């Protein structure tokens, strides 16, 4: 309980006395590149293959003659939009971005860089962490939209190239019974997950005490705690918004 309390106090310090807006803008742009742009490659690879595998496995399970084959595309689309793109992508990002944030801040803590900021009278948590949190909340939804697109494209490529579904059926299926609200739901998830990953990982890194071993430990804890929080939040959001 004390850790949770400390976490919320830490969140409060992010919005304490800040620095000049120009400083935050520069830091935000740096973090958007570090968190968002540098994650495009891994997100693209994971999403395309997950989409492809989803298509093949769904087609494998749909053997009934009364279910039209275009249903495969419909299932791939809904799986991608509702769960795979937002949740799996964010779990991948928890590993990549979360460990990066925790190890960066942990190293800054043990090498007295954070102390140096505090001695200068700079709100170190706000200066270092707030841009990361905002960058994650801005870039994660974009990455998830990109992921959903690539996942559906991956399904199309796998389905048509292996012959399990025709191009016409796939295109019909992904447009059939489309619910636009699901897109909104897909974008809300990474917004929340981005906040959780960035704040939990920053919290773990920021309060690292010790040396290199503890930095590694903080990094591992950041990833595991972020993943657990993503799964819990995923369930809560599904209950609340669907």
């Amino acid at each position, binding site marked *: 309980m004390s850790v949770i309390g400390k976490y919320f106090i830490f969140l409060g310090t992010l919005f304490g006395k800040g*620095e*000049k807006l120009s*400083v935050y803008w520069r830091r935000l742009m740096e973090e958007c590149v570090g968190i968002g742009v540098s994650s495009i490659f891994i997100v693209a690879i994971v999403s395309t293959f997950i989409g492809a595998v989803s298509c093949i496995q769904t087609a494998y399970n749909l053997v009934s003659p009364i279910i039209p084959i275009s249903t495969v595309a419909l299932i791939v689309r809904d799986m991608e939009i509702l769960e795979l793109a937002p949740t799996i992508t964010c779990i991948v990002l928890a590993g990549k971005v979360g460990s990066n944030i925790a190890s960066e801040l942990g*190293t*800054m803590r043990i*090498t*007295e*860089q954070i*102390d*140096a900021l*505090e*001695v*200068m*009278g*700079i709100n170190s948590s706000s200066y270092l962490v707030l841009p990361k949190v905002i960058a994650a909340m801005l870039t994660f939804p974009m990455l998830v939209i990109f992921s959903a697109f690539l996942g559906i494209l991956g399904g199309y490529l796998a389905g048509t190239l292996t012959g399990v579904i025709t191009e016409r059926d796939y295109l019909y299926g992904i447009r059939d019974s489309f619910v636009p609200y699901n897109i909104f739901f897909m974008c809300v998830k990474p917004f929340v997950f981005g906040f959780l990953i960035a704040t939990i990982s920053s919290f773990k890194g920021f309060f690292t005490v010790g040396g290199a071993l503890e930095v590694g430990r903080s990094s591992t804890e950041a990833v595991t705690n972020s993943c657990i929080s993503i799964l819990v939040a995923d369930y809560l959001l599904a209950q609340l918004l669907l």
Partner: protein
Amino acid sequence: MIEVSDISKAFNGKEVLKGISASFKKGETNLIIGGSGTGKSVLLKCMIGLVKPDKGNVLYNGRDFYNCDKETQQSIRREMGVLFQGGALFDSKTVEENVRFPLDMLTDQSVQEKQERVAFCLQRVGLEAAAKRMPSEISGGMKKRVGIARAIVMNPMYLFCDEPNSGLDPLTSVKIDELIKEITEEYQITTIIITHDMNSVMEIGQNIMFLYQGAKLWEGVNSEIIRTDVPELKEFLFSNKLLREMEK
């Protein structure tokens, strides 16, 4: 002038500082010496506001750091320069950016003014040629000098140095000591140095305080320290063979 009075601090019930009082003069290099684990760094952290003491006051020219409004505390912080043990340089920034950082964050100076000030500070520590290099590309001694340049870039009234010689060869140590002393006298800064390096004590120790198990055991100048009768201080001073030979 910095005055500390009756500073005490305990961690998990263990008393690390026991009612330390001292005053540190302007334009002098004030040394806090003592063995490892005697509370030197904790005392420094109490003075610069990184660790809040359980008891006691820290006065900066009469302004009580822990009992003043936030604005006064902030203005005192801006009058401080701190050289950390490992330099504490920001890894993602070049030497020049590290030195410019306090100006970027805390002042509204123009780009031109900042460049001139950074160039002056780097020239003062003899590192103008390393301005574009990253901290990972420079030696330990250079990192300390960059740390000094960053500490003086805001024209501080108080300079704190946490073991400026640790990990350096004797020659570089002497150069760092001389640089700190020159800067202290040139800009009339109140400088406090945490060290257990005997060369520093003999070379630049104008006002020395010896800590032992969290308490102040001795205070004086370097010409007196050799003739001390305090057994704990004698044991600390003559712990290496060369100095023991000299004592004989």
